[in-house]
C-alpha cells in the first residue's frame, strides 16, 4: 500500500501553478468509480489473503534486494488479488516494531527481508507461533512457523567472476560490499573464485581487489545506504588499483560505481546484483556487463500463490540455486559481442559442473 506518487512534491514546489490551473472543470464522473472500474479490468479479483513484508535498512526502491521482494508482493497483488502491507526499516531499531506491526495487522504471511532481520524474525516467530513468517537470507532457530529462503549466491557469482576476468582488459577486477555478512560475502566469494578459475584455465594472472576470502578481509561500505560518497570512494580506490570490472554487492550502489567509472575516464563496467539490473534499471545498462541474479521475486510470489490457494505452510528452507533457477546469470545484452563464444560456452559448462557438484564455487 505504499504511496506511489511520483509527482508528490511538485505540489510543494509549484502550488501557485496548480492554483492557476485550478480553474479547470471537475471531472464529470465520480473519480472513484472510474478508478474502480479500471482497477477491476486490470487486477485479479481481491482475495482474502494478506501478504506482508518488512524491509531491511534500504528502501523498497533499492533497485536490488528489497525491491525484488516487493516486486513479488506487487505481482501477487496484481495476479492473485492478494492484499499486501509493508513497512520499510530506516534503521536496525525499526526491525522489531515493523514486524510487530505486521502481526498486529494479522498478516497471513510476513516476509522479513534480509540477513539483518534474522534475530528479530526468529523472536517474532517464537512469540507468535500461530502465524507464518519467512526470513529471506536468514535461518530458523527451531521455529516451525519461520521459513528460511536462502540462495547459493556463490554459484551465479562464480559465473560472474569468470566472465569478469575474461572481459577485463587490465585483468584486475574489483568487488566491495555493503556489510560484511554472509549474504553479501557469498557473492564476493563466488566472484573471487570464478575469476581465479578463469586465470587458472588461461594461465593469465588475474587479481581480485576488495575481497580476500581466505583472510576474510575486504572493502565494505558499512551500510546499505544507496550511492553514498563512501561507496563512490571505494569504487574509485578499486579502479585506481586497476580494476575495470566492479562488482558492488550492497543494494543500489550502481550509481556510485558508474560515477566512479565515468570520473576515472576508463572503459569500465560493473556487474549487477540481485536483479537483472540492465533490464530493470536501464539507465545503468551501458555499464552493466551482466548481473548475478537472486530471483527473490519469484520465490516470494510462489510462496504467496501456494499458500493463498490453500496450501499448507511448511518451515522447510527454500534454497535458490542455479539448478532450480533461484539464481542465475543475466544475459550480456550489449556486451554480448565483447565476450568470445569460447567464454560463453565455457560458462555453460561451468554451470553444469556446479549443478552436478563437480565444481565448488567456494573454492
Amino acid at each position, binding site marked *: 500500500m505504499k*504511496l*506511489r*506518487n*511520483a*509527482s*508528490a*512534491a511538485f505540489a*510543494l514546489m509549484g502550488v501557485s501553478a496548480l492554483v492557476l490551473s485550478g480553474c479547470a472543470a471537475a471531472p464529470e464522473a465520480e473519480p472513484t468509480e472510474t478508478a474502480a472500474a479500471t482497477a477491476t479490468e486490470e487486477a485479479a479479483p481481491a482475495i482474502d489473503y494478506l501478504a506482508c513484508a518488512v524491509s531491511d535498512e534500504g*528502501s*523498497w*526502491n533499492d*533497485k536490488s534486494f528489497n525491491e525484488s521482494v516487493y516486486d513479488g508482493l506487487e505481482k501477487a497483488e496484481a495476479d492473485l488479488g492478494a492484499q499486501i502491507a509493508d513497512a*520499510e526499516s*530506516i534503521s536496525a531499531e525499526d526491525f522489531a516494531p515493523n514486524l510487530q506491526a505486521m502481526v498486529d495487522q494479522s498478516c497471513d504471511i510476513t516476509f522479513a527481508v534480509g540477513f539483518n532481520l534474522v534475530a528479530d524474525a526468529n523472536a517474532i516467530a517464537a512469540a507468535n507461533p500461530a502465524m507464518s513468517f519467512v526470513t529471506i537470507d536468514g535461518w530458523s532457530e527451531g521455529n516451525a512457523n519461520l521459513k528460511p529462503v536462502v540462495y547459493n549466491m556463490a554459484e551465479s557469482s562464480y559465473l560472474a567472476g569468470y566472465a569478469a576476468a575474461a572481459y577485463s582488459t587490465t585483468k584486475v577486477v574489483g568487488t566491495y560490499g555493503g556489510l560484511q555478512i554472509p549474504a553479501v560475502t557469498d557473492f564476493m566469494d563466488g566472484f573471487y573464485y570464478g575469476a581465479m578459475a578463469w586465470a587458472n584455465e588461461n594461465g593469465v594472472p588475474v587479481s581480485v*581487489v*576488495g575481497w*580476500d576470502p581466505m*583472510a576474510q*578481509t*575486504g*572493502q565494505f561500505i558499512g551500510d546499505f*545506504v*544507496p*550511492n*553514498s*560518497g*563512501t*561507496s*563512490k*570512494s*571505494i569504487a*574509485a*580506490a*578499486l579502479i*585506481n*588499483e*586497476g580494476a575495470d570490472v566492479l562488482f558492488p554487492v550492497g543494494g543500489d550502489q550502481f*550509481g*556510485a560505481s*558508474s*560515477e566512479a567509472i*565515468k*570520473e*576515472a*575516464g*576508463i572503459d569500465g563496467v560493473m556487474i549487477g546484483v540481485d536483479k537483472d539490473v540492465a533490464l530493470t534499471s536501464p*539507465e545503468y545498462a551501458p555499464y552493466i556487463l551482466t548481473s548475478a541474479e537472486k530471483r527473490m521475486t519469484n520465490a516470494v510470489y510462489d510462496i504467496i500463490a501456494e499458500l493463498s490457494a490453500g496450501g499448507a505452510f511448511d518451515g522447510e528452507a527454500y534454497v535458490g540455486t542455479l539448478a532450480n533457477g533461484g539464481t542465475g546469470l543475466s544475459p550480456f545484452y550489449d556486451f554480448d559481442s565483447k565476450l568470445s563464444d569460447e567464454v560463453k560456452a565455457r560458462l555453460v559448462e561451468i554451470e553444469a559442473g556446479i549443478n552436478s557438484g563437480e565444481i565448488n564455487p567456494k573454492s
Partner: protein
Amino acid sequence: MTTSKETEVKVGYKSPIVMGSIGLLTLVFLGLLGRDGMVAFEISRRTDSLQLPTLDIDSSLLGVLSGLAMFALAGFSFSKAIKNLKTPIWVSIVFGLVGVTALLGWLAAEKSVPIAFIAGTALVLAVPIILGAMAGIMSERVGITNIAIEGQLLTGAFMAAVVSSITGNFLFGIIAAMVTSALLSMILAVFSIKFLAQQIIVGVVLNVLVIGVTNFLYQQWLTEDAENVNFPGTMDIIKIPVLSDIPLLGPVFFENRITVFFAILIVPTIWFVLFKTRLGLRARAVGEHPLAADTVGINVGRTRFWWVTIGGSIAGLGGAALTIGNAGAFGREMSGGFGFIALAVVILGRWNPIYASLAALLFGFSIIMRVWANQVSPGIPTDFITMVPYVVTIIAVVGFVGKSRPPKALAVPYVKG
C-alpha cells in the same frame, strides 16, 4: 570580575610536548617497530601517458626519518616556547604533513602510494567541509553561532540533485541549492537577530527540521521516481589547459568539477574580504563588539543577516558538491555529519578561512585514507584511522587553540533599547 582567572603568563609548553609525543610514537611504532618493505610513492597517475619515476623508500626507514623530523619541529617549537613565543602555524602544518607521509608509508609497505589519487580524492571529499566551514566562519565572524551547517549542506545536496534532475541543467541545480540554503540560513539569522533565540538551539532545531523534510521527501518522492527526480549524475570535469598538465599538482588541483574550483577560489576571496576590505572590517567589528559597531553607524542586524545568509548559500553549494559534484544522487541524510565536522574545522582553523580549509583537507584525507588503507593493508583497524581527525580536533581545541579567541560577541544576541 570576569570568568577568566588565568594566572599563566607563559605561552606554555603544550605544543612542543604534544609534538614530541607524537614524534616519539611515530619513531617507535611507524619507524623502529614499523614494517619492512619498500614503499613506492607514485607521482603520476596510473592513467597518465607520461609516467614519472616513483620515489622509493623503505617503510621503516621513512618512519624513523619522519619521527626525527617531527622531533626537530618539536624542538623548534620548544625553542619558541622558551622565548615565550607561540609556535608558528606553519610548523603545525609541516608537522601534520610529515605525520601523514609516515602513516602512508607505514600502510603501504611493499606496495605503492598513489599520491595524486589520494590527494585529489581528499580534496573532492573536503570540498563540502571547506564550503560548510566558510559558512561557519562567515556567520561566526559576525557573532552568530552556526550549528546549522549540517542542515545547510543537506538542503543544498537535496536541491542540487532534484532540480538538476528535473531541469536537466546543473546550473539550475546549483542556483536552487544556493538559494534554498540561503533561505534556510535566513531563518537562523532572523531567529537569532530578531527573536533573540538561543543560537545553538536554533541551529540544532534547523538540522532536525531539514533532516525531517528531506527524509520525508526522499522516501515519499525521490525513491519512488528516482529516474526523473534523483538521477542528476555529476557535472563534467573541467581540465584547465596547461596547468592540468603539471605533474601531481595538475590532476589534483586543475582537473576538477566546478564545485572544487569554486572552493579553491572562494577561500582566498573570503580571507581577502574579511581582512582587507571595508566589508570585512565592519563584519569583524560586529562580531567582536556589536555595540561599538552600532555606535559608528554600522547596522548590526543587517550585517549579521547578510553574512549569515550569504554564508548559507556557500554551504548550499557545498551540499551540491556532495551530490552533483561527487556521488551523483541524493541519499538519506547524506551530509552524514560533515556540517559538524565543518564546525570543528572552523575552530581548528581559528576562524581563518585559509587555516580552516587546511583542517578540512585533513578530514577529507582521513576519509579516503580509510578506504585506501583497507585496500593496501587489509585487516588493520581502519576505525582508528577514521578517528584520527576527531582526536586531532580535540587535541587542537584543548591544547593548541584552546586559548585562541573566538569572536567576542559570538552567540550573544545584540539588543538595542
